[in-house]
């Protein structure tokens, strides 16, 4: 790739409910320097050019999960998406995460997403008196939490899931179910049976039809489908 300054075309979803009757796509281009390596860098340049463009961003390194959006039709984090990955000469199409209400431009209302996340009780439940230092796990038991605890709750997976689009109020969604398995798998947690009971529901868990959109988009490379499979496997083991 060349490092010279270049102009990049964007098509951005714009909607300001105070001014616009309905959303529209804005064509805008921006000149980038060789140091603008990620999509977020380009968007910061865009914002300097037209400060009415609204989007969330914070850590700019894939840890906070704020800048999740729909990039050329696929959910992802702007800060982790390399400008090099886009085909040259075609405008980059940015839309808000699908399936959630738009507050403004690329900012969506995440209430429903976090409601589902909270519904799985995303904290350790252990009624034993806390030990003086910490609750220990064997390295093997700790190993089980790898690929689960890394979730940053950016909502890329859940908002790419048609089951969540259809039943956002009832289906927990991939992010919530990944977190659910994170606590079901934790040997320090004592509420395993209650957690499984809570998820045994045609909507909460079994709306997942294993299409793996979640795995396809996860910017952290996690596998919610596998976690969901393990929850189902535990339910089978408990039932037979």
């Amino acid at each position, binding site marked *: 790739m060349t490092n010279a300054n270049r102009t990049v075309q964007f098509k951005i979803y714009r909607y300001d409910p105070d001014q616009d009757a309905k959303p529209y796509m804005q064509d805008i281009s921006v000149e980038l320097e060789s140091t603008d390596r990620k999509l977020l860098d380009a968007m910061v340049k865009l914002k300097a050019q037209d400060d009415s463009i609204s989007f969330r961003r914070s850590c700019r390194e894939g840890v906070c999960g704020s800048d999740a959006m729909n990039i050329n039709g696929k959910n992802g984090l702007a800060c982790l998406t390399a400008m090099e990955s886009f085909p040259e000469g075609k405008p980059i199409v940015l839309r808000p995460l699908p399936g959630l209400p738009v507050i403004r431009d690329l900012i969506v209302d995440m209430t429903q997403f976090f409601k589902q996340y909270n519904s799985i009780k995303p904290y350790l439940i252990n009624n034993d008196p806390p030990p003086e230092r910490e609750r220990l796990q064997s390295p093997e038991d700790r190993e089980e939490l790898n690929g689960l605890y890394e979730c940053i709750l950016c909502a890329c997976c859940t908002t790419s899931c048609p089951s969540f689009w259809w039943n956002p109020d009832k289906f927990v969604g991939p992010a919530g179910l990944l977190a659910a398995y994170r606590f079901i798998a934790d040997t320090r947690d004592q509420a395993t049976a209650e957690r499984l009971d809570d998820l045994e*529901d*045609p909507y909460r868990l*079994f709306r997942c039809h294993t299409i793996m959109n979640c795995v396809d988009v996860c910017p952290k490379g996690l596998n919610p489908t596998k976690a969901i499979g393990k929850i*189902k496997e535990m339910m*089978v083991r408990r039932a037979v």
Partner: protein
Amino acid sequence: MNRLVVGAHYGLKDWLAQRITGVIMAVYTLLMFAAVLGGAAASREAWQAFMGNGFIRFISFLFIVSLCYHAWVGVRDIWMDYMNSAAVRVTLHVLTLLALVGYAGWAVQIIWRL
């Protein structure tokens, strides 16, 4: 009474049954393909003798039951996704069940007549 209700505490059995019935149907389909390729449908008499065989009747019955159960779970899921009114949903569930039971009875009658 518009409070959201979830937590029906079922789903595992249906999910598991859909997998098992799926496997049964896949195996049956492969067997049928193999039989047809092997000449089981070469003439009307050959086909009738093949389908009249006790074992084939047995697995055909299993196939029909599997198909109906599998379809029940799948079609019910579609009603649950697209029909928001509980009254409409219950009606459609009942109609689906009645249709599937009727089809199963009819298919069994055809097979056992052979």
